[in-house]
């Protein structure tokens, strides 16, 4: 395999006096699915937001597809990129939110076509064709004209995924994509994630769905206190974790 899709090296981040990420290391290869698990407040969401520079990091480095995220190396120093350059980097990284964050004033179709048109300059007709294909892919071909409010949670989240796919990202970040859903709606969203994984998408998924993590991911990373405690194939993490902290976390989940 070529160079990794995502490299986070010695990343630290604090809010005021509270350290949220400390010496965080993680590598994700191209086509790999990595699940992040860990207790609440362990820094899972914060790490995802650092990957596309929604939050700047205090020290360390994050690179996606071989490019430093948010900074340019000038000699021994790092200089923050311009808003335009950062936006261009973000447009290659898809992100799916726990609360969907669809644009409520736009129909589903326009939710999907807005970014390709405004960021990439794709013309309206092409954007629409691609949007309809993306909706087809997540099983929502009939919902193009609906407003997000009118959709169920599972449908909204699938629109959220389709919206991210429209930018043809090289890496997809999912922050608890099923946590806000009714139990009977979880499956339809996980099915879409499974399809994406099978299609070779590189994915970083924060999740509490251990069955999904075991079945779909190539590796599972257990986070606690702002760093990766243990990372390995799901069989190893779930069945014979090396660290006591991992064991007690899984025990509490009833694993």
């Amino acid at each position, binding site marked *: 395999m070529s160079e990794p899709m995502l490299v986070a090296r010695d990343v630290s981040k604090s809010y005021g006096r509270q350290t949220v990420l400390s010496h965080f290391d993680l590598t994700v290869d191209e086509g790999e699915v990595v699940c992040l698990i860990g207790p609440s407040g362990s820094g899972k969401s914060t790490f995802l937001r650092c990957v596309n520079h929604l939050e700047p990091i205090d020290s360390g480095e994050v690179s996606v597809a071989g490019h430093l995220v948010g900074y340019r190396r000038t000699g021994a120093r790092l200089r923050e990129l311009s808003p335009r350059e950062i936006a261009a980097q*973000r447009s290659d990284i898809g992100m799916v939110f726990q609360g969907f964050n669809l644009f409520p004033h736009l129909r589903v179709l326009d939710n999907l076509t*807005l970014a390709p048109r405004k960021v990439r300059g794709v013309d309206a007709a092409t954007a629409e064709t691609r949007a309809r294909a993306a909706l087809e892919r997540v099983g929502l071909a009939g919902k193009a004209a609906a407003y997000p409010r009118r959709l169920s949670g599972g449908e909204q989240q699938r629109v959220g995924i389709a919206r991210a796919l429209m930018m043809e990202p090289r890496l997809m970040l999912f922050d608890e994509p099923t946590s806000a859903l009714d139990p009977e709606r979880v499956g339809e969203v996980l099915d879409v994630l499974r399809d994406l994984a099978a299609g070779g998408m590189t994915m970083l998924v924060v999740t509490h769905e251990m069955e999904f993590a075991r079945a779909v991911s190539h590796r599972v990373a257990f986070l606690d206190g702002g760093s990766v405690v243990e990372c390995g194939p799901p069989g190893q993490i779930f069945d014979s974790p090396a660290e006591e902290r991992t064991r007690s976390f899984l025990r509490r989940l009833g694993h």
Partner: protein
Amino acid sequence: MTDIRSSAVTAAPPAAGGVPRRLPRRHPFRWLALAVILVLAAMFAHGLVTNPNLQWDVVRHYFTSADVLRGLRVTIELTAGTMIISIVLGTAVAALQMSGGPLLAGVAGVYVWVLRSVPLLVQLLFWFNISALYPRLSLGVPFGPEFVSGNVNAFMTPWVAALVGLGLEGSAFVAETVRAGIRSVEPGQTEAARALGLRGPAIFRWIVLPQAIPVIIPSLANILVITLKATALVSVISLSDLLYTVETIYGRTYQPIPLLLTATIWYLILTLLLTLLQRGLERRFGRSARRGAPAPLWRDALAGLGSGLARFVVPSNRRAAR
């Protein structure tokens, strides 16, 4: 079609032990209130029509006289001009306050504070007399050569002073309204847009503004009505608006009541038109936020005038049907 429906209803009689018929709730107090209001309204109308001091013939004479219409036109133009200045300037100030960095945000904050603090009357007099403070105005390099310069007194006509005073004050209120509207948009919206690779101005234009507008419009319309009335203050700097015009006339004819009544009726009409405009805008921009069919425009407008009577008189079958 109505026939079929009503016969279908009567065709399902409340057979004993069958499905009970549903009756709407009774509103005895509404009827009582209506009776009281009708009596009071009749008394008031009677007084309006029969009180000779109101001199309706004088009102009728001046209502569409050339002078009054000219004054009306000044009032309308002043309101429109003020609103344009207020909205453009106010939006810019709000943008600075929210994303201009600490220095510019501070400047914008002081701007809003000062302009909301100084009474409009003081501002109008101040701008009208500004030439006493700065006799000459010039454009050039700071502390360097001047390119253009002019006499402030000649430039600061009552019209300009009124526009500057009303516009600056309006912009401070618009800035606060716009800021509140923008803050009402969830941060997750901006976050999602940024994650897609959109940038500041595009996010503002396509994501934040469309969601802020339905929140902003009602308050903006309120500011518009306040502006309309505030234009009456320009009589202190001798600008011939509607009020100043009728004042001039009754100064000559000694008929203040009918002439003030004339102006009042015009203000009522203008405010009604603005209210209709407001409802129209709300309906135009609030579309995706609303569910179900909107009520007719005129009923909205009446409700907007604070008259629950409209809902009382118009049977609420629409609402019941939902």
